[in-house]
Structures are given as structure tokens and as C-alpha cells.
């Protein structure tokens, strides 16, 4: 915002709904009562543990979700970088990613709120599969909106959602990816709002979603902060996580935010280049925190990849889960205040990170998480003695993409080409 008095007014209006000048509730009037109902439910069940909601959430995350996940000292990486590297193993959560933390929390909350139907958007299919699992587990009908392009490139995830009983609705508008899927889910919600809960997949959207999703995901940093003190006897010098919409990022950072000596690095997808094509509204990257400008998308004021005329750009990343033109408003705020350092690595560095962790540690990471590992390789000297890296998900879903992308390139960390004979 360009005027200070607007900032003051915004904060005065409701400090709960905003992070500095970011956040808010920019949604159609028809959705406001539902958003306010959700605020009320968030305060009662999540913040005040009414009816033992948070206890039930933690129990289910333990028995169904497989929490807590380990914080593992990575021996070969520690040797390679000559410092202590710890991996937070969110790839071991049921479903193979941190996504279940949020999906299970929200589907359970919908049940407590008396909602009868679950809808969600999905990009690559990770949030969709997590929501479908959680809905099956809690016996709720579930519909997932997914872009046509994403459906074509993520077939196995479409089958997984259907196996769990979810309906998958193709979205043909625009480029048929995450942004369009969110638009369409919001349209469904605006029609069915009285009995439907929208399980948004990241720390984005109107208040209270950014806080709600962050709180469900912050189980990552609650565990990691305790575990690192047990294992290393101290807090880390830095914490590194990839950032798309930012749910694993905020989950990994949240408990460390007050620890001012712990540096926080949000690693975005640099794609093929940080340059943008203004004329065609294309960004060959998803580096919103590093290069975006302030605007309103999907219910919140935040940093965006947009043209000078205010149209949202088509973003790009080799990793579908990071491919989004917006980012959570709290991350925009933490970057502006200097608490979080935005960074980016390109597709190639991420692919090398993928191969390196697979070979050195026997862990196949998601391409999203591989961006954090790519950053570690390029910048380990700046990260101090003890480093925590979040492995937000496992990479089984990405094997097809990695094979294709590796064949196109000469990657230093990739195995011999024969491995890829198909």
C-alpha cells in the first residue's frame, strides 16, 4: 500500500485478519458469512481446543498419519558440507508428504462444524490425494477440482483420489493448472457454501485460512525444534524449506520465528529464469517472494507474479507443487520484515538436489523439497554449523518428470544414462 493511513486503518480494522498489510478477506459477499463461521470455528476448536478438537487431531495424526516424523542426521550430507545437516522427514507422513497435516485437520474441523461435504483444489495432486485420504478416513463425501493439464501429467494421483472415493472434476479454463483449479473451487464454494467446507491446500486464501493451515502444519516445527535440541543439544543456525504457496514453509518455520538467532530460508522455484515475459504475462519461474509485487489474489493481499496492468501471470516450475503465482500472506510479511530470507534455485539445481539425496542418503525427495536441497548445495557455507532442511515429501510421484527432465540435460548429480533406458 502506498499510504500509511491505509496501513493503520487495515490494522485497526482487525489485526487478526492481517499480517502487517498482507492478508485480509477479499472474497465475494456470498462467502463472507462462511468465512466468518470458519473464523469462529478456528478460534473455538483450534485455538481453544473446544470439545477436545486438537487432542483428537493429534491422536489421529499419530495413529493414521504416522506422526511424529523423525529428524534424521544426514551422514553423507554432513560429511559433504562439513557441518551438521538434519533432515525433517515429512516424506514419511502417510501419503508421502506434509499435506496430510493440513488436510486431516481441516476435514476434521469441517466435521466439528457440522458440514456435510468437502471440496478442495489440487495442482499436482498432492493436496487432492491427502484430502481424499482424510475424507475417506473421516467418512465425508469429497470432490476435488484439478486442472486438465495437471490431470494429464499426474494420472497416478487421479487414480489414488478415486480409489479413496473422491470425485475428480476436471477444470478446462485457462492453462488448466492450480490457479484455475482454485478459481473453480471458489465458485463451487460460492454455490454450496451452506453445507460445504473448502479445504484450501496452502497458507493462502482469505483469513482465517492462512493461520488455520499454518497452525495445522506447525506440528512440523513443534517436533523439529524439540528434536534438534535433543540431538544437537542446541537450536540450529538455519532452517531451510522450499516455498510455493508456503504451507510446508510456514509449518517448518513457525516455532522458530521467535528464535531470532535461527536464520530462516524460503527457497522458491527459479524455474528456467527469473526474467518475466510481460507481454505474454508469462513468468518462467514461481519466485513470488523474490520477485513479486503486492496485490490481491484468491482472497488475500500478498506478493504476486503479475503484469503491470494487474493480470496474474502463468508461472512455471519443473515441480508442479511450487508452480503458483501467489504465496501465503504471512510469508510476504516475514520477508518484508526481514525475518525470512527469500531465495531461489533453478530447475537444474533442484534436479541435482533430487539425484544427490537419492544417491547419498537413500531418500528420494519430492521435486519441491529438492529445491531446498539444491539451495543447501549452493549456499551451505552461509548456513552455519547446524542446519535443518525440511524434506516436505517423497519423490515417487515425480519419477516420470525427473526421467524426462534428466534426459534433456547434462546433470552432474544424475546417475549414468543407462539407468534411464525405458
Amino acid at each position, binding site marked *: *500500500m*502506498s*499510504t500509511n493511513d*491505509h496501513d493503520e*486503518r487495515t490494522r485497526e*480494522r*482487525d489485526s*487478526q*485478519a492481517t499480517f502487517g498489510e498482507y492478508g*485480509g*478477506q*477479499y*472474497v*465475494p*459477499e*456470498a*462467502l*463472507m*458469512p*462462511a468465512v*466468518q463461521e470458519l*473464523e469462529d470455528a478456528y*478460534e473455538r476448536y483450534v485455538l481453544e481446543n473446544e470439545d477436545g478438537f486438537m487432542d483428537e487431531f493429534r491422536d489421529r495424526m499419530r495413529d493414521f498419519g504416522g506422526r511424529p516424523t523423525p529428524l534424521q542426521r544426514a551422514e553423507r550430507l554432513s560429511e559433504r558440507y562439513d557441518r551438521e545437516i538434519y533432515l525433517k522427514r515429512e516424506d514419511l507422513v502417510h501419503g508421502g508428504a506434509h499435506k496430510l497435516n493440513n488436510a486431516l485437520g481441516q476435514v476434521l474441523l469441517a466435521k466439528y462444524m457440522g458440514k456435510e461435504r468437502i471440496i478442495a483444489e489440487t495442482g499436482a495432486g498432492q493436496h487432492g490425494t491427502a484430502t481424499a485420504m482424510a475424507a475417506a478416513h473421516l467418512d465425508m463425501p469429497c470432490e476435488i477440482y484439478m486442472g486438465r493439464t495437471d490431470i494429464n501429467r499426474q494420472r497416478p494421483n487421479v487414480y489414488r483420489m478415486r480409489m479413496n472415493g473422491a470425485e475428480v472434476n476436471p477444470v478446462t*479454463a*485457462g492453462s488448466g493448472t492450480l*490457479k484455475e483449479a482454485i*478459481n473453480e473451487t*471458489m*465458485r463451487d464454494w*460460492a*454455490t*454450496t*457454501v*451452506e453445507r460445504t467446507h473448502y479445504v484450501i491446500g496452502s497458507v493462502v486464501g482469505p483469513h482465517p485460512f492462512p493461520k488455520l493451515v499454518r497452525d495445522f502444519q506447525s506440528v512440523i516445527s513443534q517436533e523439529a525444534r524439540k528434536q534438534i535440541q535433543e540431538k544437537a543439544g542446541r537450536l540450529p543456525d538455519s532452517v531451510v524449506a522450499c516455498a510455493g504457496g508456503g504451507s510446508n514453509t510456514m509449518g517448518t518455520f513457525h516455532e522458530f520465528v521467535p528464535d531470532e538467532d535461527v536464520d530462516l530460508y524460503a527457497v522458491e522455484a527459479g524455474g528456467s529464469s527469473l526474467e518475466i515475459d510481460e507481454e505474454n*504475462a508469462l513468468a518462467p519461474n514461481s519466485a513470488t517472494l523474490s520477485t513479486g*509485487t*503486492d*496485490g*490481491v*489474489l*484468491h*482472497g488475500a493481499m500478498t506478493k*504476486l507474479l*503479475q503484469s*503491470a*496492468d*494487474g*493480470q*496474474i501471470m502463468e508461472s512455471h516450475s519443473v515441480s508442479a507443487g511450487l508452480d503458483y503465482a501467489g504465496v501465503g500472506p504471512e510469508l510476504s510479511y516475514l520477508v518484508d520484515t526481514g525475518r525470512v530470507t527469500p531465495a531461489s534455485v533453478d530447475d537444474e539445481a533442484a534436479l541435482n538436489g533430487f539425484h544427490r539425496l537419492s544417491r547419498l542418503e537413500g531418500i528420494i525427495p519430492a521435486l519441491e523439497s529438492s529445491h531446498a536441497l539444491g539451495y543447501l548445495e549452493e549456499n551451505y557455507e552461509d548456513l552455519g554449523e547446524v542446519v535443518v532442511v525440511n524434506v516436505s515429501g517423497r519423490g515417487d510421484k515425480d519419477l516420470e518428470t525427473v526421467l524426462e527432465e534428466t534426459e534433456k540435460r547434462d546433470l552432474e548429480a544424475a546417475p549414468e544414462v543407462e539407468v534411464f533406458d525405458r
Partner: protein
Amino acid sequence: MTSEDRRPAGGEPRETRTGSDGGKRPVSADYDSDVEAAIRKNHPALITYLAVGDPSIEETKAYVEALDRGGSDLIELGLPFSEPIAEGPTIQASINRALEAGTTSEAFFELVEDLETDATLLVMTYYNKILQYGDEPDVGPFVKRAAKVGLSGIIVPDLPAEEADPLREACDEHGLDLIFIIAPTTEGERLETIMSQVSGFAYVQARLGTTGARGDVSSATHDSLARLSDYEVPKAVGFGVSEGDHAAEIVEAGADGVIVGSALVDIVAESDDPAAALEAKAEELKRGAVRGSETVTNDTEDAPEPEQP
């Protein structure tokens, strides 16, 4: 936080307005604004919508003038945004065609400046388009330019009253109405608060969901108009209105105006002679609205309940 804290601040009543020439002038003693006057004087008012730039700026000019000739009292000009979350498939497709044709905010304003219509002109767009018009994210430059080119009001489907203070202040400063949408889910204290701040008219959303032509008038329309009957402000109903008979039924149920968009956008996309077809459609809708108001006037006090679909 309680709902008390969330109440949008009420705007002070205006004593002067800034005209499109930039000069201050007193508001007509009878009406709060040009927009309200356009509805009251032309009661029952026809409000029509087109997405600007579909298929080109030049053609939009011809189509808007056709709607004006056909009897539109107010015309909503859609400034296309890439993420139109409140629109159904028809208007989404129209917005996409407009964006593919390269429609910018500047081209939009130049078109409005060129238009020769009797109808009062409004702009309908999403909040980010308003924020990004100047060099910095700020609503001021957009509103200033809108007033200068002769627009009388702004409708922003993704801006609820809670977030509207900056835009409302800019609109007050430049003499524009900021028109709020009343949804079927807007009830109780929230409804009262929003109705107390109505500027121009209350845009009554006929049904939950997105814009799009429908085959009937929803029961939610009748419910909403009944709920709003105690409020003096002008009420116009949109979302799903496509035929003269709908217009008649809606006016009969107590509306002061009807808003039609998707049915007109369909004509732009499909007709061999869109200008003629738009003019004819506007005439049909206006006739329907007038028929509805005659029923209201002629009926005795115990008018029959409108038929529920």
C-alpha cells in the same frame, strides 16, 4: 473477535459530488447520487453488462451503444481480470476473449471516454485491477481516472464491506458510488450494516453461485426481496436474469431494477448481428420490467404472492 468488531465503518452522507468534469456540484435534492437518480427516474431500471474488449474495443463501443438505444438505463462495463472468481462459464469465456484481444485498463478508460450514451455508466472489475492502475498498489489513481472519463459507480465482486474502506473513501472523494452486493447468505446484523451504507443501489444477488443465464427466477430472489422490503434504498437484482418475463417477475416482486449480463454476452459470442440483437434484447427486458411494475401499480392491495419456481 466478535461480529461487533467486524462492522464496516459507515460513510458520512455526502453534501456535494464531484462530477465527471472534476468540478464539485450539489447532489440533486431528491437523490443521493447520479446512480440512484438513474434508477429512480427510470423506474423500473434496466441495467445491462458487457465485458469490454470482447471481441475488440471497437465492437464493444457499437454493442454498448446498441444496449443504450434498446433502453438500458445503466450499463455495467466489465474490465477484464485474469481470475474472475465470481463469474460463471459464459462471462469467463467472454473475459478470456477480451484478454486475448489485449484489453488493458488504459484501453478501457479510453473507450469509456469515447462512448456516447444516455445510460449512466458503471465499471465492474476485480480489486487487483483497481489497485494496480497507478505506479504503486493504490486505489486512488483508478478512481480518479474513472471519474474523469465519466463513470458514475464501481462494482467489485471480490471486495466485501470489511475491506472496502480505502475504495469507499476514494469514491467519496471523486464522487463515485461504490455498489455493494447483497447475497442470499447476507442476513441479520451484517445485512443491516451493509444496507445502512448502500451507495447508488443495493445489488441483490439472486442466487448462490456465479453469474450465468438461467431458465427461471430463483426462490432466493423472492426471499431476498422480501427480506429487503423494509429498506428504502433502490434494489436491483442480478445473477441469472435472461428474459423479459424474468424482469417482469422480479420487478413485480419488489425490485427497482434488473441486471442482465450473461444473456447479453451470449449474444455477443453467438449472434450474426450482435448490435441489432442486443438492442432487441434490451427492449424485451425493459418491456418486461415495465410490465412487472404495471402489475404492481394496477394490483389491489392484496396482490397474489409471486409464483415460486
